[in-house]
């Protein structure tokens, strides 16, 4: 009887969740736009016949919509300073940008959550040392250190990921710790201990699932943040290097042609902005939906 009730309740909860999601137009649109964008980026060869690095010097700086030569399709978004198709470069370049943003956040989340949960759960000295470290790190010029790390290790996507991960763990650590503190003092954990459940099991099976929703929100918003950070560093020459490409690098290389060919600058920026915006809207929605303290509309 009791079991039947719980099943009914979860089913009911799911329905309302989907309904609310549908009602939240901004989040729904953001989700659709993001899915379309991701599909285009990861199946780039389906959407464009051009290659990232095939240059056609006679077609350089052609405006959007210029017909392609030798039976090729139109340059929908024009071409860049070397006559490469901008649309194709945006799609292929997006892979690196998203890869960096996502990987950096994953690494930060893993380090941060492990340290934060340990700090909050064990308390005492462990907590003191980890939190002092977070304090010091929060006052450190992490962007400057990240640039230095990239430069001494050599610019490139892999080293950029390592450098940015330096800055991505503190937020997760703080969050995980505060959540773990709340959980540690909860009756659920106390009864777990009382009936002899082991500490790792309590942490992974009971504490972790309960702190999931704020962490997911942070994860989504931080991914957006680091897509922006990648663009910033690649723009300055500290990130992805040619012949590879990313949104930030396209902007960095194209900015000299702002006057003759503004499209090289306008479109990559818009794509970055739209991606970051979608992730932010989705993150906000997750927070509003799953935070018990947030005001429900």
């Amino acid at each position: 009887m009791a079991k039947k009730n719980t099943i009914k309740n979860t089913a009911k909860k799911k329905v309302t969740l989907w309904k609310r999601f549908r009602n939240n137009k901004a989040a729904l649109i953001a989700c659709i736009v993001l899915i379309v964008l991701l599909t285009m980026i990861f199946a780039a060869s389906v959407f464009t016949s051009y290659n990232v690095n095939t240059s056609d010097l006679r077609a350089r700086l052609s405006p959007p919509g210029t017909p392609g030569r030798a039976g090729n399709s139109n340059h929908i978004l024009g071409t860049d300073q070397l006559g490469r198709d901008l649309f194709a470069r945006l799609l292929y370049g997006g892979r690196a940008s998203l890869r960096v943003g996502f990987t950096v956040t994953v690494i930060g989340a893993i380090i941060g959550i492990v340290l934060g949960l340990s700090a909050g759960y064990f308390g005492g000295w462990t907590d003191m040392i980890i939190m002092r470290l977070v304090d010091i790190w929060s006052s450190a010029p992490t962007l400057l250190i990240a640039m230095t790390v990239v430069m001494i290790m050599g610019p490139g996507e892999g080293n950029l990921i390592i450098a940015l991960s330096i800055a991505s763990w503190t937020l997760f650590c703080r969050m995980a710790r505060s959540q773990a503190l709340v959980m540690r003092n909860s009756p659920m954990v106390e009864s777990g201990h009382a009936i002899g459940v082991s500490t790792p099991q309590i942490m992974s099976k009971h504490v972790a699932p309960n702190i999931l929703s704020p962490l997911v929100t942070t994860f989504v918003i931080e991914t957006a943040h680091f897509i922006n950070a990648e663009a910033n560093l690649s723009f300055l020459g500290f990130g992805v290097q040619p012949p590879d490409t990313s949104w930030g690098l396209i902007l960095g290389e194209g900015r000299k042609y702002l006057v003759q060919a503004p499209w090289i600058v306008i479109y990559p920026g818009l794509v970055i902005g739209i991606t970051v915006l979608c992730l932010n809207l989705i993150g906000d929605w997750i927070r509003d939906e799953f935070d018990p303290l947030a005001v429900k509309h």
Partner: protein
Amino acid sequence: MGMGKYILQRLAFTILVVLVISILVFVLTRVVGNPVDILLPLTATTEQRELLTKQLGLDRPMIQQLGDFLKSAATLDFGDSWTQRRPSMEVIFDYLPISALLILCAMAIAVLVAFPLGIIAAYKRGSLLDRFLTVLSLVGICMPPFWIGLMLMFFFAVKLGWLPTSGIGTWKHFILPAVTISFRPMGNLAQIVRYEMTQQLGEMYAITARAKGVREINLLRKHALKNIMTSSITMIGNDYCKQLGGLSAAVEVVYGFPGFGHLIKETIQSMDYPLLQAEVFFTAVIVCLINLIVDILYAAFDPRIRY
């Protein structure tokens, strides 16, 4: 705990942070990186490389290098910049103040726009102005600042010719970079002000005040504004630190503005170690001091906070 003791404690923490970060960067640059490869052309001979390594003192044991560095850094002497061939401190003082001023202007713009807009939006939720605020803050938060800079430059400097495209000299050169940098903090601040103000206006004290006939402007000025100050100041302080710590570099590069961000970028790309150490030192000190000022301001706005 008294205020004085609290400040002393925070200053001690500042020293700890600066020490840890300085040593970290020192060790990192000397263990992993080799500046000789960047300072000399690819064609340089082995003898030339060894000579330069010796001249820069990079052949000595690391612990000795670190000891010397810390000793002179304690007297604020970071050595001569390798690329500019003059004391690093001098270089810093050529670049830091102008960026500090630029970012201060940007923050002023952000505050002047975000506060009125956020407060009005909190009063008229769902209005046209509220939507404008949402769009403005989303643009500020999501768009890469250097892209906003390129767009503003394209319209106001290239197309309309109202303002200079790049460089420095008159106050007009400050307008575009300052407006560009202000977008991010403006977006952050506008959202915070709107959210907090909405909360405050629904609090019991606000309802009571209105019920006994306090005028809305007084309620705002004497009560609600004070209550949203702590979170706003935190945000302003944070954004200022981030911008000065290298975030403004891309915007400064776009406008050819010879500021601190620009200097940081050049220094790291040319592996100018003494100058880099000086920059690390100054950014860490400034970040800690701004955080301290923010904490002291908390107490000024919220009498419940005592140190």
